[in-house]
């Protein structure tokens, strides 16, 4: 199976290569034959070849350059998404899926237009916060960190509901987006490394694409302990009535 690490050398701001390193090993542990392919600016992209597509966070300026490159391959990505290929975009990479991104100077950049929402950046405040979230995919609460300067309006199918953190806009607890097998979120961590349950979910979705795959539950002692340490530390900081 082939996994795509998209813009590995520029959308990699928050240790997000960790997602791919751990995912690759977990998939191999399921007996799958895995190849990770890195593509970046200047490369031609054909999304029909991959069983999983990942991109991480970049600076606001990097994201615009990446978006400009990705626009050329927009239809190929849209088709892969419609076919149900698992996609994970963490940080501001998921903003590219919307219809536009307006930067802090007010310039509107046309985005991929695969999903109907818009993003607006500003340069005065950086939203930085630990996060606890729940979602429909897994039972365990999800932990992570938000580090962004943007807000996303018009997302109808959010991924998470936050009990701590910063949502898609300043007036919602809804965070990220979920459409078919596309997960988009500003939660970093790296997300899959910090959340063994979500990693397991993703391994199953990718594995299922291979005929005859059956998932074998596996324990990853340190990942589970690390998750508990973070979740416990964060939960202590919630108001009493939300613990």
């Amino acid at each position, binding site marked *: 199976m082939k996994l795509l690490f998209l813009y590995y050398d520029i959308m990699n701001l928050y240790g997000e290569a960790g997602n791919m390193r751990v995912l690759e090993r977990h998939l191999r542990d399921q007996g799958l034959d895995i190849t990770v392919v890195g593509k970046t600016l200047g490369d031609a992209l054909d999304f029909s070849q991959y069983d999983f597509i990942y991109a991480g966070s970049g600076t*606001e300026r990097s994201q615009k350059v990446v978006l400009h490159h990705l626009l050329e391959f927009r239809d190929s990505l849209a088709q892969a998404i419609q076919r149900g290929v698992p996609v994970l975009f963490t940080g501001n990479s998921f903003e590219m899926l919307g219809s536009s991104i307006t930067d802090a100077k007010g310039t509107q950049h046309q985005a991929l237009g695969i999903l109907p929402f818009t993003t607006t950046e500003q340069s005065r405040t950086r939203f930085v916060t630990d996060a606890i979230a729940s979602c429909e995919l897994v039972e365990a609460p999800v932990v992570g*960190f938000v580090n962004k300067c943007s807000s996303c309006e018009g997302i109808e199918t959010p991924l998470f509901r936050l009990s701590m953190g910063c949502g898609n806009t300043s007036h919602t607890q809804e965070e990220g987006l979920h459409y078919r097998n596309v997960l988009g979120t500003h939660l970093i961590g*790296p997300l899959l490394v910090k959340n063994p349950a979500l990693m397991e979910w993703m391994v199953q979705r990718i594995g299922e694409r291979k005929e005859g795959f059956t998932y074998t539950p596996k324990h990853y002692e*340190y990942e589970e302990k690390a998750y508990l340490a973070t979740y416990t530390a964060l939960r202590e900081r919630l108001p009493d009535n939300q613990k």
Partner: protein
Amino acid sequence: MQRTKERSDVFMKTSFLILLCKILRMVGKMVGKGSSLPGRIVLKLDPNILQKIKLPEEIVAVTGSNGKTSTVEMIAHVLQSNGKKVAYNKEGSNQIEGVTTFLLNDCTLGGRVKSDIILMESDERFARHTFRHFTPTHYVITNLYRDQMTRNGHPEWVYDIVGESIHEGTHLVLNADDPLVSCFGLGRKDVTWFGVDRLPFSTDRNTSLYNDGRYCPNCKARMTYDFFHYNHIGSYHCTRCELHRNPTEYTVTDASLEDSYIVINGEYRIDLSFSGIYHFYNTLATFAICNLLGIPGEQIVASLNRYTMKSGRIVRFAAGEKEGTLLTSKHENSISYDQSIRVAVQDKRDTTVTVIVDAISRKYYTSETSWLWDIDFELLAADSVKQIILTGRYCNDLAVRFSYCGIAPEKIHVIEDIGEAVTYMKEQAPGYQYVITCFSDKDKFLEKVERRNEE
């Protein structure tokens, strides 16, 4: 008549606030409080107080991700040992409140700063607020890296903020080897560049886990490097725009990591009491600014030769029978970790390396550990490293990360409690001990061992 009265009221008020600040600082020192509170109170009473005092002719500010405190300490040392009276924020209180405290403390009641030179370590995020009140004559910018991103966002975000603190009339002293820092010099004439020539430790390829020099920070086209010193620090040029490593006026032309010395501009050899590329840069920046301020090269060399840092980043210790060195690094700053790891693996004796991640910051709370994936822990797979101890609240995050480093699992010991980790170290850890951790966690270790001396 009325105007004179107003003016004298203003004068009275300023004198009063200076006195108040001095008293608060004195009381604060007696009860062991930090230096930001007096400034905070005075700023509440008069937000423009800093515009009302008379400043000396030379005001030097130093900012950057790494090396601010050490560089400021060395600059102060050189200036003072050459007869200059220097006011500087030696306690690392580098936000506006701390700066206010230290400036007013150095004032006569008439509102004149007594020192010849003001030297400030300036927090990269707060400089734009501080420099609204007064403008540095010289502004040294050491580097901009991925650093404390949970509050700094990312290097370009910090770049934009630092950019707002640069005003006309300020002479910039810039690290030519850092492409992002070099952007501050684009289109400016009043810049002095410093940098390090190609040396034996330079590499043709970027050997770290990520490369923030891959794309030009000015136009985002590919960059080409002639060589790297570490991470994205080296000699580069953009394949599209005019960004390139500028010719340097102050240059390390020769240096040795093994013998701990640098030679500046081919003639000024400085013997260092501690080796490390980042220390070369701090020393070079110190030389550059002090020379610009009129101190002759020979005299700077005399002051800096074998100078021992007071800020105590490197601490020798004994844990039972085991001798060791604690290398203070910064959590959330992969480059500072990479540097410490290099120091540890340069040592060819048998070693044990301990990494402590307990409180990620001493100033704020976070559980964010993504920066562990940016650190080149893979280097610790070296043969000389016989064992690894991972400890502190986030030891399991470390253990996950270390399981991807190509290090045999039986070499790695995960012990959450720092006390138990120290016991293990005393009883079982082989060889010389290196401990890598942050300011926020180092005392949790040092209080359990015997300190030797500090460098």
